[in-house]
């Protein structure tokens, strides 16, 4: 074999090995940091999904392929039962030369239990596509605060539930919290998620999920079977 070609192959191999090692190192470092964070917060930690999170029927968990749940922190945080975890999936796009490309999407999620019996409700930040849909008349659920309508998209199987949950206080709080957070309610679960966050940035995510849970108006408990305060 030509020594030049051999050198090139070796360089490629070395590059692949370095890449694989770097990926492994990053993953291990995140696991260690999360394990430490879990210990500091008095929570349990599991590298893998031991709770069957992938069976939860949230829209987020039906997107793309290669869904992965890992780094689960679980237990009681500030009086609330939580499960915090990393979630990722990929979307495959075909390129013009016949190949395909995977685009990974990574999220940090918090799952809360509630005694509320929720119809499906999603509250996510507005995107280019939702704004486009709005402009041609395919509107989501519009609420009385125009500023909120511009910042968030609200969809639900039950409009009355959506209107009841998203009262003026909740909308004002969500506007103050900023557009980085998304929420999905279904059955007895509340899912709060954002783009993947560094371990030390997870406490605001936990706080946001807890605050959302607490901000659900009292009347919703009465109308939708919340039997005990959250």
């Amino acid at each position, binding site marked *: 074999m030509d020594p030049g070609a051999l050198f090139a192959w070796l360089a490629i191999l070395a590059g692949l090995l370095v890449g694989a090692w770097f990926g492994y190192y990053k993953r291990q470092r995140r696991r260690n940091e999360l394990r430490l964070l879990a210990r500091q917060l008095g929570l349990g930690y599991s590298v893998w999904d031991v709770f069957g999170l992938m069976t939860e029927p949230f829209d987020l968990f039906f997107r793309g392929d290669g869904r992965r749940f890992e780094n689960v922190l679980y237990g009681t945080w500030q009086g609330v039962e939580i499960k915090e975890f990393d979630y990722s999936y990929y979307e495959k796009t075909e390129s013009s030369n016949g190949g395909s490309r995977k685009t990974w999407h990574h999220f940090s999620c918090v799952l809360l239990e509630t005694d509320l019996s929720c119809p499906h409700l999603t509250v996510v930040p507005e995107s280019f596509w939702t704004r486009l849909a709005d402009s041609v*008349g395919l*509107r989501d*659920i*519009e*609420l*009385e605060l125009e500023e909120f309508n511009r910042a968030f998209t609200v969809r639900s199987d039950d*409009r*009355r539930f959506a*209107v*009841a949950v998203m*009262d003026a206080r909740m909308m004002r709080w969500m506007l103050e919290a900023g557009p980085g957070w998304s929420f999905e309610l279904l059955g007895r679960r509340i899912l709060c998620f954002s783009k993947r966050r560094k371990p030390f940035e997870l406490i605001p995510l936990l706080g946001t999920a807890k605050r959302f849970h607490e901000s659900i*108006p*009292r*009347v*919703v408990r*009465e*109308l939708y079977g919340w039997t005990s305060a959250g």
Partner: protein
Amino acid sequence: MDVRRIGWRGWAERTGTVEVAIWVIVGIVGLLIVGAIVSYNRFISQRQFIRDSWANIDTELRRRYDLIPNLIETVKGYASHERELFEEVARTRAAAAGATGSPAQQAAAEAPLIAALGRLFAVAEAYPQLRANENFLSLQTELANTEDRLQTARRFYNANVRDYNRRVQSFPSNLIASTFKFAEEEYFEVEEAIREAGAPRVSFEQPPAPAASPPPPAEPTQG
């Protein structure tokens, strides 16, 4: 094919272009008719949603009217000299319960009742024994819950009206609205009236034990 020799008409006939054009026109007209039917039916169902959500408001208003006589009787037992206030609450309740007009008229009739109830609860604040009365506390809680449900029902009604009115105003659904006379609906807005009059103030704090000196006024929470 020489278009100059046979002309556009001849060319179109020979190539079947006329047939294609006719089918395209028929397709477009068909789509417009289907679109109009869908839009019309959506107006009908939206109007029905508005009626149903108004019925929810009406149910909660009736529930509130039903609670008021008991409330008056309970307060009377402790503050019998506030006769004028009791009469005012009873009169405004009767006027609100008798209002059967539009949402705006209903809102106008609700405002004096809300103001009178606000004053009734303000009076109750001055009677620690009344505030400790179980019946009064239970009525307060029920009234607060009814107010919450009423507010939710009102917001749902207004959300339905907002969606409907937007379609009445925007193109192309406004063409269907004007053709079939779908007029804009009224909102049910009592905020202004409540702000002016002061909403019924309902406190969930435990009343202090009766004492020789009057207790400090509790911070009331709105129900």
